[in-house]
């Protein structure tokens, strides 16, 4: 039995056993999911999903009546063919500009094919992903800006900026994001006539700003005060010292918590679906309603969020390595 004991304590055996366990657990999870869906009689139709990401848009534009082309109005990439029938009634056909095959003055007959095309178009999921990305990128940029200045105000010795910053931070951290989004949509949005998109982005930025402010404050405070003193003793103003001495050092330290905050922000952006912004989650819900293939849709939605958050993690890791040169 000594040899079995030896085997159990052999680090290489333990390593291999651990890998085996991992594979068994993962296989078990997949099998479990499969079995569960069997029990609820769910019919998987993964083939439904790709067309919500990209779909082929095929169209044939035919003339509805005999008429004469009177004008070609170019608008963006499309051209509107304006025609008049014998009663002088105008009709319009919109086709991609590069497919226009009629000229002004030309007669067209009923049923004539004015244009025929097949194009790849982004499906609802991809559109939702793009909207989520736009909202996230804008909110992150604005959130950094708000957070930096609030963080600095929070550290100020003068009462007005300091207490305004504390008030703002506590207000935001003490209320649910969903409620803040409603306030930005129904109240701020109405007063300042904001689009849904702007209301959503502002709500998320103001929300992120409060958390980013605390991250900046902690980062700045973590820099030894000798750094500020050395900079000031060289005659640098507070602003110069912050800009060139303190913030570059603080930024390196706050990168990991900042990244965590922004990964949360990407996920939290799913809440702006409530103000009629068809971002990724809302797109998923709408597709789910029309296809009842909720399982596939939301697995796909989850995977798309993962792509966004994982890319952000990779970007931050890259930045961390870049900044690490001086230590």
């Amino acid at each position, binding site marked *: 039995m000594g040899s079995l004991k030896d085997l159990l304590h052999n680090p290489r055996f333990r390593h291999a056993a651990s890998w085996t366990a991992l594979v068994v657990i993962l296989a078990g999870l997949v099998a479990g999911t499969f079995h569960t869906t069997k029990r609820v009689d769910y019919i998987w139709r993964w083939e439904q999903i790709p067309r919500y990401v990209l779909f082929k848009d095929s169209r044939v534009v035919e003339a509805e009546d005999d008429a004469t082309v009177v004008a070609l109005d170019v608008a963006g990439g499309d051209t509107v063919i304006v025609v008049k029938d014998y009663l002088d009634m105008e009709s319009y056909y919109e086709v991609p500009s590069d497919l226009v095959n009629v000229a002004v003055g030309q007669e067209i007959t009923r049923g004539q094919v004015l244009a025929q095309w097949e194009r790849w178009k982004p499906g609802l999921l991809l559109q939702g992903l793009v909207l989520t990305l736009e909202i996230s990128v804008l909110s992150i940029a604005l959130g950094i800006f708000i957070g930096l200045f609030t963080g600095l105000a929070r550290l100020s010795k003068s009462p007005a900026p300091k207490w305004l910053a504390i008030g703002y931070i506590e207000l935001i951290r003490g209320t649910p994001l969903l409620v803040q989004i409603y306030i930005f949509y129904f109240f701020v949005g109405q007063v300042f006539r904001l689009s849904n998109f702007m209301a959503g982005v502002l709500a998320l930025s103001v929300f992120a700003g409060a958390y980013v402010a605390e991250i900046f404050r902690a980062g700045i405070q973590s820099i030894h005060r000798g750094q500020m*003193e050395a900079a000031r003793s060289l005659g640098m103003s507070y602003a110069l010292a912050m800009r060139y001495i303190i913030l570059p050092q603080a930024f390196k330290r706050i990168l990991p918590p900042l990244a965590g905050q922004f990964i949360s922000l990407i996920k939290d952006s799913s809440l702006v679906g409530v103000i009629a912004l068809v971002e990724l989650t809302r797109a998923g819900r709408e597709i789910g309603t029309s296809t009842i293939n909720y399982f596939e849709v939301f697995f796909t939605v989850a995977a798309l969020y993962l792509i966004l958050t994982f890319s952000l993690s990779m970007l931050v890791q890259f930045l961390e390595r870049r900044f690490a040169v001086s230590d």
Partner: protein
Amino acid sequence: MIEVRNVYKTFYSRHKVEALVDVTMRVTRGEVVTIIGPSGSGKSTLLRCLNHLETIDRGEIVIDGIPLTDSRTNINAVRAEVGMVFQSFNLFPHMTVLGNVTIAQTKVRKRSRDQAEEIAMTLLQKVGIPEKARSYPSQLSGGQQQRVAIARALAMQPKIMLFDEPTSALDPEMIGEVLDVMKTLAREGMTICAVTHEMGFAREVCDRVVFMDEGRIVEVGTPGKIFDSPDHERTKAFLAQIL
């Protein structure tokens, strides 16, 4: 050059600490003054007040004719004329040695990059480490870091240099190289106010020694007088302790 008149400074942290009590002192142009005294006697606080890193409660400080206590005084302009070297070096770790020595020149003195680098290289030559210009502070020994810190302060071409225990964080074998730089500066006529317990420095280049205890200046005199025949019991007791 430096005028300190009846300065008081009290800290209120957990206890009330009277860091400076009725301190009056004067340093003339080109003079080298060493401040000694037990730990907590207010030496650092005094130096920091000279650079306005601490504000004073009462009294007056005049640097090169400019009163620090006057609200119209541009403190940054005064600080640019007063170089300070800290016990813990306080180099900027995210910049190279060259970056450390040029940043204030370009941002405060508004010198061109080329000119700032030229001045920096001359100063690094002077403190004996021109070959480290492209290194980061973390790659240097303590003695080298402190010499960079001195070069960084000198780059502003200050009229006064303040040293706060510049060698007490250093390994013994590196103390000499920093003191040599300080001695050179002293001999060149720089006005210096240094907190240090290096008797060699004090005896060789220093004009006057100030002994402080419990926030007060107890005794002032030439190095010979203070070290060999001090008037006060407290000075004697302190010297007996450190020698």
